[in-house]
């Protein structure tokens, strides 16, 4: 494989490299102002394929390994989903591997919870302990007494498998702290979670999505490309993010009013009949109800709500419709904003439906087939289990396989409807990512046993009874993973270790396999990773060879339009502008707008919003030595005028307070944010004693966020908090 890479790259640079090398050799003796001949030689590295794990995108990479040490991670040029790039975080993946603060051995808590007193123990002792504790909890509280939480990791599927085999229904992932509201809205409108085909789009409205900092491949790069080709990208954001800076047009929308903007777009598109009548008639249901619903929602009305001039809204609606179907309201990912985020995202989905962009180039496309087979198993059924998840029926439309972390946490604290006393956590970090850190702490205090498997001692691991070291994604073998890349089709990646696992780390797969034996269900893990991959690739006989050769495999990708004439996976088999399901459940069948609630406390006049830097993956990367150089601490973005009123100057330390908690950090006084809004990065103000770049540095955003959730799907709602800000030391 290395010869293959170098040949390809060599061709790319052949002229340059050959000239330089020959010239250097020939001229060294004659021209003293040159390096001595042969002074610069190619590094003696091996090149090995991998897939990045610094965020969920999993960009294909090539690890340059010299004498067993990873020297550099480069983009895999054949991994076209990321357009041949590796971002700052991807490059910093090396520092994750060689982080001196990594968990090196299994650690048993010996002091009080969170006190940081640990004892290094052997794997046998650690896994015996975990197995016996899980057995005890199952015996005392049924098998649903264990909660399993796994982050966005290729091996997380084994945690789900294990939980099912163990017999617990209580499984959460990071998704209910992130993207479920958007998924809910699109499933309930289109019957599917579509992907944006940015590359062919002519007009994109990014509302509350910051693609130039919260990088999503290939969308982030494609947005720049299409703008160069004449497409228009509109950004709505209370902050002047880098996306706002680079967009064709930016509007500092008032937080929480996106729905008003979308409904006004619908109003213009419907009243001016700018939609495709054939598409809307054949493929959607509820246009009449929608038309009636938005009849009064004029651009002028929306201007009063959003702060965006009516003339601009009118113009954008017309431009958007004119570009349709190669136009879209970008669906976005993280949608954990408000208690009515599902309805907000429904309004996004509805405008897309009116554009008739479904399964069209430049519009929203259904997920492309990947061809991976699931690996079946037959977990036992335990009759003594409670009827469902601990958060079941808490909201009308919970995703049963994701649940809601915020509600689960609430119910664990209450001990109702049934007690939940054990927690298995793999590479997810609710102590630093779930709103209201004190509540997470309170929940943990209710537990009898908590085990965390992770690479670094996250804040969540810091709270555990038992911490087990996992290798990084560069040190382990992984199953095949399918990745979606818009209309270009899915691609498959896998991982083989580019170096052996460091320290005593063990992949969670091996941990679970061992535990499955100790707990009496070895049949759930009667395979190894190569065998598992074989089963996954049963329908793709050529894939394994190509993965070995290229580091990525592209399954056949049918052309767009394949769903034309086929029913949508909704109750009405059409795109539901008017949601029958919501009507059934007594929910608003059309998104009903209400002005965002004002702060309940005059002293707390700033809405706190979350966001991203391209050098930060929430709380999982801020302790990275290289990335901490880019984001050494978080600051509170504070509008210049607001700062003036508060007497806060650039760099002053401010005290921020909400009903949930408080924090101190430096102020960034800037025109780049609305006067009524403040912003800070996540991942700082940590509490773990093994995160030296972030513990005691900046403030924790989850300490300040109140515990709110989406009323329809239970996704967390992290923009519902108002905070007070004052200069430290001021009265």
């Amino acid at each position: 494989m290395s010869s293959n890479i170098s040949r390809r790259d060599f061709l790319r640079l052949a002229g340059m490299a050959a000239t330089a090398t020959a010239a250097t050799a020939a001229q060294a003796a004659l021209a003293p102002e040159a390096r001595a001949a042969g002074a610069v030689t190619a590094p003696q590295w091996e090149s090995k394929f991998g897939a990045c794990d610094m965020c969920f995108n999993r960009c294909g990479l090539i690890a340059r390994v010299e004498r067993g040490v990873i020297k550099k991670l480069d983009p895999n040029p054949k991994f076209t989903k990321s357009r041949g790039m590796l971002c700052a975080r991807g490059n910093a993946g090396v520092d994750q591997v060689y982080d001196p603060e990594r968990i090196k051995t299994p650690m048993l808590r010996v002091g009080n919870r969170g006190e940081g007193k640990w004892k290094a123990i052997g794997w046998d002792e650690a896994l015996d302990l975990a197995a016996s504790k899980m057995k005890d909890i199952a015996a005392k509280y049924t098998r649903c007494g264990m909660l399993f939480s796994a982050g966005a990791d290729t091996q997380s599927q084994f945690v789900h498998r294990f939980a099912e085999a163990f017999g617990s229904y209580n499984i959460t992932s990071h998704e209910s702290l992130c993207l479920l509201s958007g998924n809910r809205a699109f499933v309930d409108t289109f019957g599917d979670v579509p992907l944006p085909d940015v590359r062919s789009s002519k007009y994109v409205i990014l509302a509350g999505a910051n693609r130039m900092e919260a990088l999503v491949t290939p969308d982030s790069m494609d947005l720049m490309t299409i703008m160069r080709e004449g497409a228009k990208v509109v950004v709505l954001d209370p902050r002047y993010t880098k996306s706002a800076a680079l967009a064709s047009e930016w509007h500092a929308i008032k937080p929480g009013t996106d729905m008003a903007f979308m409904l006004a777009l619908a109003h213009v598109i419907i009243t001016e009949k700018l939609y495709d009548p054939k598409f809307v008639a054949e493929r959607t249901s509820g246009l009449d109800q929608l038309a009636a619903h938005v009849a009064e929602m004029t651009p002028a009305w929306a201007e009063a709500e959003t702060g965006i001039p009516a003339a601009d809204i009118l113009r954008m609606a017309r431009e958007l419709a004119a570009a349709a179907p190669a136009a879209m309201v970008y669906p976005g990912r993280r949608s954990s904003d408000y208690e009515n985020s599902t309805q907000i995202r429904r309004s996004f989905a509805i405008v897309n439906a009116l554009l008739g962009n479904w399964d069209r180039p430049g519009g929203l496309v259904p997920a492309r087939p990947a061809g991976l087979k699931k690996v079946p198993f037959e977990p036992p059924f335990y009759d003594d289990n409670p009827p469902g998840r601990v958060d079941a029926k808490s909201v009308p439309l919970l995703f049963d396989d994701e649940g809601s972390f915020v509600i689960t946490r609430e119910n664990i604290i209450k001990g109702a409807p049934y007690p939940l006393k054990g927690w298995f956590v793999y590479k997810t970090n609710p102590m630093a990512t779930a709103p209201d850190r004190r509540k997470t702490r309170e929940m943990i205090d209710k537990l009898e046993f908590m085990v965390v498997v992770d690479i670094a001692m996250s804040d969540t691991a810091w709270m555990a009874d038992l911490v087990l070291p996992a290798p990084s994604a560069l040190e382990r073998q992984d199953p095949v993973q399918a990745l979606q890349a818009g209309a270009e089709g899915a691609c498959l990646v896998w991982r083989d270790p580019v170096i052996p696992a460091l320290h005593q780390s063990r992949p969670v797969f091996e941990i679970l396999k061992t535990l499955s034996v100790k707990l009496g269900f070895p049949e759930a893990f009667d395979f190894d990773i190569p065998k598992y991959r074989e089963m996954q690739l049963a329908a793709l006989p050529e894939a394994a060879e190509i993965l070995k050769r290229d580091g990525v495999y592209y399954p056949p990708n049918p052309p767009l339009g394949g769903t034309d004439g086929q029913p949508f996976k909704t109750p009405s088999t059409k795109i539901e502008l008017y949601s029958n399901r919501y009507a059934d459940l007594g929910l608003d069948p059309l998104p009903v707008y209400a002005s965002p609630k004002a702060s309940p406390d005059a002293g707390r006049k700033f809405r706190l919003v979350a966001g991203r830097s391209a050098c930060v993956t929430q709380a999982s990367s801020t302790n990275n030595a290289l990335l901490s150089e880019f984001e050494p601490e978080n600051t509170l973005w504070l509008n210049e005028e607001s700062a003036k009123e508060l007497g806060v100057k650039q760099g002053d330390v401010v005290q921020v307070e909400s009903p949930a908690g408080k924090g101190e950090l430096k102020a960034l006084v800037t025109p780049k944010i609305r006067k009524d809004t403040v912003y800070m990065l996540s991942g700082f103000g940590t509490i773990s004693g093994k995160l030296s770049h972030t513990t005691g540095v900046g403030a924790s955003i989850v300490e300040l966020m109140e515990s709110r959730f989406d009323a329809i799907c239970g996704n967390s709602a992290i923009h519902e908090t108002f905070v007070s800000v004052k200069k430290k030391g001021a009265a």
Partner: protein
Amino acid sequence: MNAKLAMVIDSAKCIDCKACVAACKQANGVSRGVWRNWIKEAVPPVENGKLGRGHFQPGACMHCDEPSCVIACPTGATFKDKADGSVVIDPKLCIGCGNCIPSCPYGARFRDPVRRIADKCTYCPERRAAGLPPACVDTCPTKARVFGDISDPNSDAAKLLAANQGKVVRVIAKQNDTKPNMYYIASTAPDGWAVKPVNPLSFDALSQVVAPLVKYAVGLSGLGVLAMLGRQLLVGQKPDVGTPHEGPEKDKKEDGHDAR
């Protein structure tokens, strides 16, 4: 023909993601707190009371054709590599005097706090030897950075330059056009950041006072020696002088010495 390595940057494509900066640090083991390359952010214009379009400008050492840093280097550790046109620092020859740092109008140089010598962008010669582009170019998400030999019309960089003839701009120190080899396409901002190259006072003293002074002193001394040698040759060798057998009277008589 010698190569002329250059970077052609379409700064309007840059999203300020810092991938190039991170890649550079990782590829070259650049010490904590210092940077071989950068992305500068233009102060956004205010249009109709709100911030207008932003612009981000990737940069690094421009490997100038008339580099002021080379002049400021006392040991020749910094030089213009004639084979490929890059400005090179030989770490083994650098004594870390720091002269070159303020002499670069683009702030491209720094003194590495660990190795204690001057450092800057090298265009990743090891990677080039392996047939790879420089780390920053390879990793860039939007391919804003394009690298190559612009004397080779088939290189990506030369093609991009040719395609944008008349639209290419360079950031140049107004006081001193060092002929940088970093080309920005169409327009770029910020553009006024290049500063006047400044040599440390000690260096100016060396080049403007001490070096001429020493030249004169050595010249004068050399002239004196020549004069003595001339006289010696013209007037002729005194056979009595310097031979230990000669008597003192002769010395006195012929040489006029009066040592008593």
